């Protein structure tokens, strides 16, 4: 089996549709270890990537005013049981452009794999970028994942990001995104993850609302069981007049698992408003009993609630 076929198979297992990665009409980037197996640019979207000793450096540019109709598919993976993959990425979304990325990061055989994502993202004035990233780390828990991004949203720009890790083991995850939002801009960060055994999940989401009327939401949904641990640090700063932000964290804990949440809200302008809510613990009694009264066992009912929360 070729490297390309192997990564496509892993991509499919993590929920992706390999046909998108083969289509010349769909923008895509396929990276296995430090090998760039495919980089397909389309009108309005340029994808370039170069090999590094331990990964890949990629640059993605959406031209000003370009509306990319179909989602752009990104596939990053490590097929062997051991290895390091470092992805240095630079996304530039030109003024008024619009694009959606669907990324799958898959490490199906991982026993000792480290995946580092160092991203810089610039959403230009009036531009929109949606980024959905789904991870599959296999069943051994031998993955360390470090997604890092520094995002800048210009005036009137919109940035939506969703990180999802709800199948297989999480391993060690340390997610850290910071977004600076300018006037009339918007940022929504959502992180959803499930951990079990001795998984350890850390989510750090920071949104700085620096421009007048900027909006931000830092949302996290984490479920842990067994001896797994989760820590969520959601920060939103209202630094400009009429900026509005919210931190929304829910962590469901079962068994011997431990969860920790630190929602931080700060305001440096007296016309800004930032709110937060955090709920940690077991699932709600009424939700649980409603499903049990329909004949579901407690475990099955909790599973339905948690999977709903994680968006499955």
């Amino acid at each position, binding site marked *: 089996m070729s490297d390309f076929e192997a990564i496509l198979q892993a991509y499919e297992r993590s929920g992706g549709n390999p046909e998108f990665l083969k289509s010349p009409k769909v923008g895509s980037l396929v990276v296995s270890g430090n090998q760039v197996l495919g980089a397909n640019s389309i009108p309005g979207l340029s994808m370039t990537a170069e090999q590094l000793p331990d990964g890949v450096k990629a640059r993605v540019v959406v031209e000003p005013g370009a509306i990319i109709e179909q989602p752009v598919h990104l596939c990053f993976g490590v097929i062997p049981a051991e290895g390091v993959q470092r992805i240095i990425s630079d996304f530039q979304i030109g003024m008024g452009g619009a694009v959606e990325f669907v990324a799958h990061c898959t490490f199906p055989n991982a026993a000792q794999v480290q995946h580092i994502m160092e991203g810089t993202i610039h959403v230009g004035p009036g531009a929109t970028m949606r980024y959905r990233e789904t991870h599959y780390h296999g069943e051994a828990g031998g993955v360390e994942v470090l997604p890092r991004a520094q995002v800048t949203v210009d005036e009137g720009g919109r940035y939506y990001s969703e990180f999802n890790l709800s199948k297989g083991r999480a391993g060690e995850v340390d997610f850290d995104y910071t977004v600076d939002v300018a006037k009339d801009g918007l940022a929504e960060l959502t992180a959803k993850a499930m951990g079990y055994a001795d998984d350890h999940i850390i989510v750090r989401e920071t949104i700085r609302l620096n421009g007048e009327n900027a909006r931000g939401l830092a949302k996290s949904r984490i479920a842990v069981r067994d001896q797994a641990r989760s820590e969520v640090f959601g920060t939103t700063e209202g630094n400009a007049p009429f900026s509005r932000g919210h931190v929304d964290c829910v962590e469901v804990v079962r068994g011997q698992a431990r969860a920790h949440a630190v929602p931080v809200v700060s305001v440096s302008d007296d016309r800004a408003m930032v709110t937060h809510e955090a709920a940690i613990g077991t699932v*709600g*009694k009424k939700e649980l009993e409603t499903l*049990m*009264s*329909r*004949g579901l066992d407690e475990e099955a009912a909790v599973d*339905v609630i948690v999977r*709903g929360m994680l968006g*499955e």
Partner: protein
Amino acid sequence: MIDREMMNMQTQSLLQVDDLHVWREGREILRGVDLQVKEGSVHAVLGLNGSGKSTLAYTLVGSTGYTPAQGRIWFDDQDITGFTISERGKRGLTLAWQEPARFEGLSVARYLSLGMREPNVKRIHEALRAVALDPEAYLGRLVDESLSGGERKRVELAAVYAMQPRLAILDEPDSGIDIMSLEDIARLIHRLAEEGTTVLVISHRDEVVTIADTASLICEGRILETGAPGHVCDRYARCCRPCGRVTPVEKEIEYERL
């Protein structure tokens, strides 16, 4: 046991409650409830707010924190007093909650299918239409905060209808429903009954009780009278409304606390 079975065969009771006492946070809320609900009937329990109606509903369904201090609950000739809520649900005893829970990320279609033995789309469509919701518009909606209170309530009734339970307890089915009229509620209850579901309606509104075949009047945690709905409504209007005497009101937060 033999006496009990013989008695139930004579009365064809699906549900029988004997001398039920339930305490909550140091107060006795149910003070010796006796109740028989005949199989295939629509039975109403009428009482003022705070008379113990919802406590009775939670106790019958087996909610945590509502374990009787005394008394027995029989369902289909089986003593279910010690059964969990799930075990009762599997036997076909369910509750449409007065203020239904919200579920993040759970679609209406999935929610309705969860209680069905053999989920099928046709039944789910039927259930939504039975509560005056357009299936095309609602199947993909989420059972979360995006539904209004009235929509959520109707979805709850649809879920119970889709389940085809043996006993459906409907706690204040008309409260918070914006569009459905009492006639719609009556139609839904009769559809349930026609399909073989025994219905126990709990309400403080005597108009709802007129839908029933039989009614019981509850006051201060006791059933005062069981009989024809008209007769029970008369007594409710003459005695209960002017009196207004109630046990300490069970607030929703107190249910959640346990």
